[in-house]
């Protein structure tokens, strides 16, 4: 007993905070999601599946969920497509250039999402820089409408999240034996074959891990879709926000949040399982 006491005492303060500030609120939200709401009477303490049924049955919510996960898949795919090659290029750079480029790519992670999203709004807005330039040099006469489109949300989210992909692949690449590429070349493989047969399979765990982070963060993204997607292009996170702070239907908002959380956890867990099963035997 004496040996077991210290670790629990050391963990104690953090555990108490987490129980009081995480477990209790989450459980309360879960309970709240079964309550019902009346526009005049407010929240009623009765219990039922009606909020979940509403989300499952209403095509309005179907569209929102489909849009959210569609965007998540597109963003994840694009991040892998440009982030993985970039990480590889970084790994082949001379040291000075590499640290500069890494600084430029990872640095934005430390800048609030709101600032980065604002940058895109300034670039692609109707009075934005892109339109200003295009009109200025006479390519178009009326501004292109890019704000409030799914495409703009996807591009901006790729911008916000691709550093995670670069970081993830970069970490894997650092574990790669630099001689392995030379070995493949010396055995007669072309540069392309070396990339495809030797480098790519070894960085796949990094790509997959990065994809997981990007996917989960896109599915729960709020600021970027809210600012660049506007009122009409709703995603799950903005819908929950609206239910809470505009419609004031907290129980419905809570059930949307619970569904989002469960969906994320399920995706992360099953994906982790799959990746571990596939690579445990091969890599350390």
């Amino acid at each position, binding site marked *: 007993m004496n040996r077991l006491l210290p670790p629990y005492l050391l963990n104690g303060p*953090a555990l108490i905070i987490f129980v009081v500030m995480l477990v209790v609120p989450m459980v309360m939200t879960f309970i709240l999601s079964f309550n019902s709401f009346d526009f005049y009477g407010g929240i009623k303490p009765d219990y039922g599946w009606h909020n979940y049924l509403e989300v499952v049955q209403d095509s309005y919510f179907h569209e929102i969920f489909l849009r959210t996960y569609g965007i998540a898949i597109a963003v994840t795919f694009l991040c892998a497509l440009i982030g993985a090659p970039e990480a590889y290029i970084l790994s082949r750079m001379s040291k000075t250039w590499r640290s500069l480029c890494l600084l430029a790519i990872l640095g934005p992670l430390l800048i609030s999402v709101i600032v980065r999203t604002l940058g895109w709004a300034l670039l692609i807005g109707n009075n934005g820089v892109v339109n200003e330039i295009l009109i200025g040099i006479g390519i178009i006469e009326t501004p292109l409408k890019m704000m409030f489109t799914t495409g703009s949300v996807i591009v901006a989210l790729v911008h916000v999240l691709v550093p995670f992909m670069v970081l993830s692949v970069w970490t894997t690449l650092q574990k790669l034996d630099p001689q392995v590429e030379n070995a493949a070349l010396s055995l007669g493989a072309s540069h392309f074959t070396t990339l495809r047969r030797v480098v790519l399979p070894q960085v796949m765990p990094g790509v997959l891990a990065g994809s997981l982070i990007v996917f989960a963060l896109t599915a729960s993204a709020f600021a970027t879709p809210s600012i660049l997607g506007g009122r009409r292009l709703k995603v799950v996170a903005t819908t929950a926000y609206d239910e809470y702070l505009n419609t004031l239907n907290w129980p419905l908002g809570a059930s949307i949040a619970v569904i989002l959380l469960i969906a994320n956890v399920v995706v992360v867990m099953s994906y982790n399982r799959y990746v571990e099963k596939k690579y445990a035997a091969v890599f350390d």
Partner: protein
Amino acid sequence: MKRYDKNGPLALVFNFVFLLFILAPLVVVCLVAFTDKGYLSLPRDGLSVRWFVAILDHPEFVDAFWYSIYLALGSATVAVALAIPAAMATARYKFPGRGLIMAFFMSPLMIPHVVLGVAFLSYLSSLGWSGTYIGLVACHVVLIMPYALRLVLASVTGMDRSAELAAKSLGASKWTTFRRVTIPLILPGVTGGWVLAFITSFDELTMTLFIASPSSTTLPVRMYQHITETIDPLIASVSAVIIFITMIMMIILDRIFGLDKLLVGK
């Protein structure tokens, strides 16, 4: 062995376009902030700092900035204070539930911020803590704990324990060993964890949006509210200030820790 750039021209073009993509939005924010016009525009007819001066006429941004700083200072400090003993326990003891407790502390990473916001909103209002500093700090501590813990834990597990044994063999007491050997050895990780926690708290928007009140509004929340109404050069200049401050911090961080190490958590 010296290593040289092994990239071909195509790769270098790719790298250039990629960096352009990453930096363009930030550069545009800074450029627009320096416009001399009264509306959104690139500073074509000369640079002006009028929109930076204008920030001072909007105390709501200045107040929100300071509130964000106080909030981040408080929550990062509490988070690190909780993380150090927790990391010590995990790194130094074997006990039932060790992995589970770690997963528990890391779990906020898996929870979408909007879900945390939803949960904290109703919880704080039922406690009567809505919009209080204590309430916001408590919520932020949970959110940033994983970042603090990851770096502190890495430094505690990565520490050479024989240095502690050496100190003890030279006659140092338990407390002296902790103060003179352990603390200095884990200090880089602890500082890194604190800084990362501070930045995460300072930048947080989504969750804070739910729990902030008019008297306890953070800078990102104030900016979001402003942007949903109007996008003008003022918000660009506020953002530019954030970018400048972050850039200075980033360069210092990179010098001390290496940015990639800090973000990977090793």
